[in-house]
């Protein structure tokens, strides 16, 4: 993350060089080291993630070709290579073709005015077609419109009205047409063939044919020079909406080989003309000291934090995880409206609200940033925490894509919006038929200005360990299904694998990107039912060799060991579910290490450090838990958290939390803390507990050698830790005993008081019960009559089965 922030300055400079773009010069250079933690932040190896985070988006629908291409060209036109001077007419960026992020460089007033004039123009264009003079007279005429036969209500001629028109009909006057009305409906078309008067009529016909598709053309103008048209024309539509439509759809229209239309709104010229030639130095934003955003990493005990939502979402708390009892750091009512999320390195806590997303951080969990996005439902962070992607099902309009918005976290600025057709594929934002568009940061433009056209793409997935994207295309008649690995930005296909009789594919990357497993469900010819193949791609080897493991049983779950070469598979049908652990050896052999049968599990949870795994039978399987050490494949413990719905490893792999969320089950909402060996440490019952999330940690700064060294010296450390544990344990039991002692003392004191009162009342008691002392069970033993009762006890021998 640091790298990213550190390189942010040159990036900002780059942006400044493109005034024609959607991000004109308003972005202040992020204060250097703004987020640099004071503490453990020794610089990471430079340049790993900084240069370009990429966002994969598959562009929409069948018409996507039409829509995306102009955009790509528009981007080309406004690319960094262009001169920063105001663009020439034909170079005008067709920014309306791919409606941009509202230009943030504009003064807000200007934007507002645009909107107003829009609505005004709409009102007028209905009748006047832009005849300003007539429209201006409309009001007086309306007043005189009374019938002549009626008695005259008109004022005498010398009457001076003391009420201003403003006062009288201010609300109508506001909508009074103005001189500039109507120009919103005018478009300019460039690259029109230059013709003499002889062919002008023909040209007009052609133009009319093309452009009347978008609405009624009320006026046209073909400027001429030396008897020939000048090559650009003006067209006026009946309404601005038509003009916008025309710009969107006709820009880039290929009339013939030499002539490709460039279509722009007339008003755009105005807009770009007014951009100053001088570059204004953006005002330096005052530096906001947010404190050390990574303070929690400096905690002496190396404890982790987690967030807990409870009381059905009304309260959210942050705790330090502690072996004894969780230590509360912060608790707030209605902190979030739905749920929370941590950023991937743990710097920010995101809360969800109807109006958008808020990010919190620092020691006091102060608000750091807000992103306004009505009805936001899903978010995703970029891996280095520079960008935030938000999704909202509301608000999407044709002109202004708002379904998915990408934000810059540091500045809070909107980088780009996207349309969204279906929300099914989060976090891979957008999935449809044909085109895969890859956008690059920081410009948020299409990578290489071109979408990848992959017909029939079903699913894609980024490698977590490099700029490689994997995607697959299903079978189409005689063409086999294909899994492709593509290097970016070179777009070189590094591996293609053809597969037959494919029903479905799932792409599973190992966390480091060392391996890719493609789970292929196939129906081989001549067999019944589905066979599953695991195609294991070894990414780190030359030409990416592939090995296959075939499974005949139903696959319930698959998971890679995060930092290793093992994977676990749950297979079979309930109640005969087995788990198999495989190891991908260096020579490429895939070896079955161990299989356990009769498992009560439907989910696999690897420790983030690998080696240890929790197999959980969540929800319908009553919360059965098995803790397995895969180094020697022993089951360390079998346990149960009844009706558990979630399992969460802490980021260090030391603890596991199982929980019953109120979202899935309405009683016994609680979270339990276990060690990685499956020893239960705490049961935390929380009223209507909803969600627990561990705060992630940034990747370790230690080198592989240092880690090795630590592992080697483990004995030395473990001695120290054990001593510490013993100390804290004895302290804990001491504290507990101490607490009990005081409780007991207080209680005794109270009882003594109560008993004194009781003794005082002895006479009254005796009196009430006719002198009989009933204070003790046998205190009136003298009054007892001896009575012998005989019970008839029959002994009967019942076989054990009938017994309770």
């Amino acid at each position: 993350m640091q790298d990213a922030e550190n390189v942010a300055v040159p990036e900002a400079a780059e942006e400044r060089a493109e005034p024609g773009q959607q991000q004109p010069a308003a972005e202040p250079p992020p204060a250097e080291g703004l987020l640099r933690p004071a503490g453990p932040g020794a610089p990471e190896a430079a340049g790993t993630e900084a240069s370009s985070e990429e966002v994969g988006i598959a562009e929409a629908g069948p018409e996507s070709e039409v829509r995306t291409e102009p955009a790509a060209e528009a981007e080309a036109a406004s690319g960094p290579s262009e001169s920063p001077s105001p663009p020439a007419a034909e170079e005008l960026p067709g920014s309306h073709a791919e409606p941009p992020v509202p230009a943030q460089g504009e003064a807000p007033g200007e934007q507002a005015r645009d909107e107003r004039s829009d609505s005004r123009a709409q009102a007028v264009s209905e009748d006047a077609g832009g005849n300003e003079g007539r429209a201006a007279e409309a009001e007086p005429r309306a007043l005189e419109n009374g019938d002549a036969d009626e008695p005259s209500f008109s004022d005498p001629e010398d009457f001076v009205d003391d009420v201003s028109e403003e006062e009288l009909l201010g609300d109508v006057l506001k909508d009074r047409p103005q001189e500039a009305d109507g120009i919103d409906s005018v478009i300019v078309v460039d690259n029109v063939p230059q013709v003499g008067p002889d062919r002008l009529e023909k040209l007009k016909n052609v133009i009319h044919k093309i452009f009347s598709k978008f609405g009624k053309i009320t006026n046209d103008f073909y400027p001429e020079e030396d008897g020939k048209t000048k090559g650009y024309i003006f067209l006026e539509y009946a309404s601005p909406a038509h003009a916008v439509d025309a710009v969107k759809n006709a820009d880039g229209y290929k009339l013939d080989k030499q002539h490709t239309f460039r279509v722009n709104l007339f008003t755009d010229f105005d807009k770009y003309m007014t951009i100053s030639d001088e570059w204004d130095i953006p005002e330096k934003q005052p530096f906001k000291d947010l404190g050390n955003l990574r303070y929690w990493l400096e905690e002496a005990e190396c404890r982790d934090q987690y967030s807990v939502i409870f009381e059905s979402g009304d309260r959210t708390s942050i705790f330090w995880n502690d072996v004894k009892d969780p230590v509360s750091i912060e608790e707030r009512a209605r902190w979030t409206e739905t749920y929370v999320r941590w950023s991937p390195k743990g710097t920010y806590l995101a809360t969800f609200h109807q109006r958008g997303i808020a990010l919190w951080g620092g020691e006091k969990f102060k608000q750091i940033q807000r992103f306004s996005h009505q009805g936001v439902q899903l978010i995703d962070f970029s891996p280095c925490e520079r960008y935030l992607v938000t999704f909202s099902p509301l608000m999407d309009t044709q002109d202004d894509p708002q379904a998915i918005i990408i934000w810059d976290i540091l500045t809070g600025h909107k980088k780009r919006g996207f349309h969204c057709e279906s929300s099914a594929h989060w976090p891979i934002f957008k999935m449809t038929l044909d085109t895969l568009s890859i956008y690059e940061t920081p410009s948020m433009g299409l990578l290489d200005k071109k979408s990848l056209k992959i017909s029939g793409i079903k699913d894609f997935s980024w490698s977590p360990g490099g700029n490689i994207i994997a995607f697959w295309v299903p079978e189409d008649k005689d063409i086999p299904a294909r899994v492709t690995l593509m290097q970016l930005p070179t777009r070189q296909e590094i591996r293609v694998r053809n597969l037959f009789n494919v029903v479905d594919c799932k792409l599973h990357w190992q966390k480091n990107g060392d391996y890719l497993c493609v789970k292929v469900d196939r129906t081989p010819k001549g067999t019944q039912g589905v066979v599953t193949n695991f195609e294991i791609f070894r990414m780190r080897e030359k030409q990416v060799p592939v090995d296959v493991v075939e499974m005949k049983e139903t696959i319930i779950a698959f998971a890679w060991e995060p930092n290793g070469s093992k994977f676990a598979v749950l297979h079979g049908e309930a109640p005969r579910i087995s788990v198999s652990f495989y190891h991908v050896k260096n020579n490429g052999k895939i070896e079955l290490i161990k299989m356990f049968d009769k498992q009560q599990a439907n989910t696999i949870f690897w420790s983030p450090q690998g080696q240890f795994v929790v197999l959980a039978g969540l929800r319908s399987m009553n919360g059965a838990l098995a803790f397995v050490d895969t180094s020697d494949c022993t089951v360390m413990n079998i346990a149960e958290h009844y009706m558990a719905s979630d399992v969460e490893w802490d980021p260090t792999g030391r603890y596991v939390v199982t929980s019953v969320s109120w979202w899935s089950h309405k009683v016994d909402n609680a979270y339990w803390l276990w060690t990685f060996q499956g020893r239960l440490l705490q049961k935390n019952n929380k009223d209507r507990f909803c969600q627990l999330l561990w705060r992630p940690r940034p990747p370790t700064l230690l080198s592989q050698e240092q880690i090795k060294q630590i592992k080697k010296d483990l004995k030395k450390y473990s001695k120290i830790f054990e001593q510490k544990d013993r100390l804290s344990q004895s302290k804990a039991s001491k504290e507990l005993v101490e607490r009990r002692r005081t409780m007991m003392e207080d209680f005794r004191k109270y009882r003594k008081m109560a008993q004194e009162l009781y003794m005082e009342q002895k006479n009254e008691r005796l009196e009430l019960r006719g002198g009989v002392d009933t204070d003790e069970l046998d205190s009136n033993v003298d009054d007892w009559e001896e009575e012998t009762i005989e019970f008839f006890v029959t002994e009967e021998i019942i076989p054990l089965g009938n017994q309770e």
Partner: protein
Amino acid sequence: MPILLQGHERSITQIKYNREGDLLFTVAKDPIVNVWYSVNGERLGTYMGHTGAVWCVDADWDTKHVLTGSADNSCRLWDCETGKQLALLKTNSAVRTCGFDFGGNIIMFSTDKQMGYQCFVSFFDLRDPSQIDNNEPYMKIPCNDSKITSAVWGPLGECIIAGHESGELNQYSAKSGEVLVNVKEHSRQINDIQLSRDMTMFVTASKDNTAKLFDSTTLEHQKTFRTERPVNSAALSPNYDHVVLGGGQEAMDVTTTSTRIGKFEARFFHLAFEEEFGRVKGHFGPINSVAFHPDGKSYSSGGEDGYVRIHYFDPQYFEFEFEA
């Protein structure tokens, strides 16, 4: 092995030992009132007469009389030994709670807010037969706000302590009927109130998943015992600092057949430390009523499943001590 008492066809509503502990009275949502020998679980007899669910039962200090209150809109007084019905007090709505005072001369019962009738606490002096004959209590306290869901006599019969649907506790004077003390420590209905043997303190069981210990005179809150389920009943050990809680998921909320989820166990807490130290399983539904034997060597529980179980403690129970 516990002794299983099968004398009811419907879920148990209340169980109570007499003062000496040789007898155990049980009432249920059927019209039968049973009395058992607590030592072996043999049924001594029944008190027949009610025509509806019986909500409450009490015996006086010398076990001469038994008092029962029922949903058939009556409170009845019985001769304990013969089972003869001595008095029938008709009411306008179901009788929810009833009890003899310390001397056994005055009875009180509370009626439900039901069918347009208010919740009342009625007091009769048994020494004045005309009160019974004319069905005219010497005092009737109206209770407009929140109906009484449990009530007991305070020490020396000077007051009654009533728990309400709202979770409030009121101490009413048995002479004037005025509210002497009012506290609200529970957030939901108080299902049960039971006094300690010396009557200086009492424990409440509430739908808010807790049981609480109070001082009988001041109604000062002393301790809280927390569980994850509504608590239907709680009883104090006569000779140890222990309290037993019975409850469980409400029958109407039981969605699965598993008894595990309902948590139908009797749970034992230390009175001073508020810590749980033991559980006893057995019932197939929530426990509606628990009672300690006056000698503290056994306890009984009555459940929604219609069974009453008498449990004798094993030796470890008496040896167990918290480290303190």
